[in-house]
């Protein structure tokens, strides 16, 4: 057991931290959000130059063979700086689905393009009725000779508006809530029949509604078994949850730091308010929530590679519960302890609060995962 970063991981952390410190202060971030796509093309190129976009992929596909710990390191830095670029959508979700579900040919075609920064992806899965059930897929894919015809509507597709290609889940067989019969398709974002309506999210990221009307997809664009995509969707979702947990930790860490700094400088009643025990104790409680969250983010990173899917899902659910709860507490208290300042759009802490709040709603909130964990027997066997 070893909690230290390796020399290579340490170098990665230093270079990501340096990049974000140099180019991602809060004012720059607000400027990037106003760019046409809602994020910075220049930073995207910088990520490519640093190798961040290639990180999780095999060396054979232009990558660096990084694992969840490397991803955790990057995501924590992104969380601290409130990075806006489609890293999760393109590298973790899109790249992850190709890496874990795609054929050798698909991988060697697309992963190097992602690594170079030339291909952006999105994952279109959630539907109006599905909430957080990954198996609930109503979008259909009808076989037509060797190809498929897709019909349906996908919601809250992260960075779906700026993606070049979209990975779409659609039902090839079975009924809407069956685990079997789900296919995964790589669809050109500008293919005939695909329409996208992009919008900003509460945390100033971007998402889109994606409508598919008789979209024709050829056999080469099917990812894996056309009736058996759910396991890879679950696996990549778990990897994404582990990544989001690390991002949330970065955001919480920053909130605690900002809050403690504020308490040490803000004066009322002729004293810095940080001299009041009630506020010191609240800060200590935020620290505890953060560290418990950090522990579970590490646990999630470790368990994202677990071979047994049931064990993996339980562990990831447990981590999502803790991150959701810690995030809510740290976020609410960070705003509370800043007073009115915490409520303003001009100040960073409110944006961090909004990001951790939205992270809870991604891929299942704390209650969803608690009920799933409880249903499947909890963490400690009787």
């Amino acid at each position, binding site marked *: *057991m*070893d909690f230290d970063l390796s020399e290579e991981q340490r170098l990665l952390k230093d270079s990501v931290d340096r990049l974000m410190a140099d180019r991602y202060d809060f004012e720059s971030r607000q400027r990037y959000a106003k760019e046409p796509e809602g994020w910075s093309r220049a930073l995207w190129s910088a990520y490519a130059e640093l190798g961040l976009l290639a990180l999780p992929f095999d060396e054979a596909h232009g990558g660096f063979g990084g694992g969840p710990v490397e991803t955790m390191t990057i995501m924590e830095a992104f969380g601290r700086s409130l990075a806006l670029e489609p890293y999760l959508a393109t590298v973790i979700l899109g790249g992850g689905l190709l890496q874990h579900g795609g054929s050798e040919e698909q991988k060697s075609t697309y992963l190097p393009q992602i690594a170079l920064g030339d291909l952006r992806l999105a994952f279109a899965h959630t539907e109006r009725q599905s909430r957080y059930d990954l198996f609930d897929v109503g979008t259909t894919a009808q076989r037509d000779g060797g190809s498929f015809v897709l019909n349906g509507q996908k919601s809250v597709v992260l960075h779906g508006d700026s993606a070049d290609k979209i990975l779409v889940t659609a039902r090839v067989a079975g009924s809407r809530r069956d685990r079997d019969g789900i296919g995964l398709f790589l669809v050109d974002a500008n293919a005939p029949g695909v329409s996208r309506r992009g919008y900003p999210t509460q945390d100033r990221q971007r998402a889109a509604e994606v409508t598919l009307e008789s979209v024709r997809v050829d056999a080469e664009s099917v990812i894996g078994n056309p009736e058996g995509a759910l396991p890879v969707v679950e696996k990549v979702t778990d990897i994404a949850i582990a990544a989001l947990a690390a991002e949330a930790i970065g955001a919480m860490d920053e909130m605690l730091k900002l809050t*403690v700094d504020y308490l040490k400088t803000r004066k009322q009643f002729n004293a810095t308010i940080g001299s009041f025990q009630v506020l010191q104790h609240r800060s200590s409680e935020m620290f505890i929530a953060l560290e*418990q969250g950090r522990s579970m983010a590490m646990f999630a990173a470790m368990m994202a590679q677990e071979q047994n899917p049931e064990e993996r899902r339980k562990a990831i659910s447990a981590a999502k519960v803790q991150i959701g709860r810690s995030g809510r507490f740290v976020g609410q208290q960070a705003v509370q302890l800043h007073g009115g300042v915490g409520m303003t759009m001009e100040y960073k802490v409110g944006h961090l609060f909004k990001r951790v709040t939205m992270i809870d709603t991604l891929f299942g909130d704390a209650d969803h995962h608690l009920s799933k964990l409880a249903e499947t027997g909890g963490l400690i066997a009787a």
Partner: protein
Amino acid sequence: MDLRFTDEELAFRDEVREFFRTALPGSIRRKMIEGHHPSKDDLVTWSRILNAKGWAVPHWPVKWGGTGWSPVKQYIFRDELQQAPAPEPLAFGVSMVGPVIYTFGNEDQKRRFLPRIANLDDWWCQGFSEPGAGSDLASLKTTAKREGDHYIVNGQKTWTTLAQHADWIFCLVRTDSAVKKQEGISFLLIDMKAPGITVRPIQTIDGGHEVNEVFLDDVRVPVENLVGQENKGWDYAKFLLGNERVGIARIGISKARLKRVRELASLERIGDIPLIEIPRFREKLAAVEVELKALEMTQLRVVAAESRREKGKPDPASSILKIKGSEIQQATTELLMEVVGPFAMPYHPEEEGRNEPTDGPDWASTAAPTYFNWRKISIYGGSNEIQKNIIAKAILGF
């Protein structure tokens, strides 16, 4: 970073687990599972089994009976012991005064006391708290005045756990009242058989007798029983309390109790449905398990960082272990109360040799007393509110 146990650590865990499975007497194991307190004899028996194996004081220096295990192995050992579930060796000796003696004591003291602590030949108790000195421990008033080769000790200690069995008490005493309160305290080892010592029991809300008041009237203590330097006792006390916090999370105990909750909740039924299948209950249980898993990872982070820390300086993050560890232990006792339902009601004070049947299922009788008793956990060892002060000052820099 690799958060998994190594193959060597896993093999060690299996070895330890197997030892606890075979070496722990069945009668003691049963008591522990059912939530009864082990008796003095149980603890002596078990401590000597451990000592014969060479595992009574794993964290001590090898010279004095320690094993030289890595911090991770120490953690595994403690976790397996608690999950067995086996009684923990008497903390006042092996975790508190023992480390103070081998760190700050002289050679005579080490030779005289350490082997007897390891074998539980001497039962130690802790003379820190006083009626007027709880969280503000440094304001203690018990005095020790030097007269020739002796200190004459006068005062009162309280909340003295298991003093009724004790052969020795380690005490914080005031040796200088003219200086700042922390700078006039000394650390004395006192024979409980010395004339002038009176022990009076305090019954706690669970009905049990664990804690006592200890009165010291003109008790003569030879000067060779002073540990370290006169008036440096506060440093030794802080060292001791810091060590206490590390072991205080007691994750293995919470694991064992949650396992028990799950077992019993699958036997209890609401109508035809086992309690464990009621979503509200099982989600509450799962929520505690999540907190416990997070704490286990936090504990392992503290453990892994231990080898890099300056000796004798506990990690301030150990305050997290105390706060969350106590909250989780208390949550497990609440869950057990819920499982027991109406049979939490009957009151049967624990008496040695009591033979009458309990009213209700025989596993139900300890649920409420344990719940009441375990409220102490967030109070002792530096209350959770004091721990939050420590985090605020030592970590957040207020």
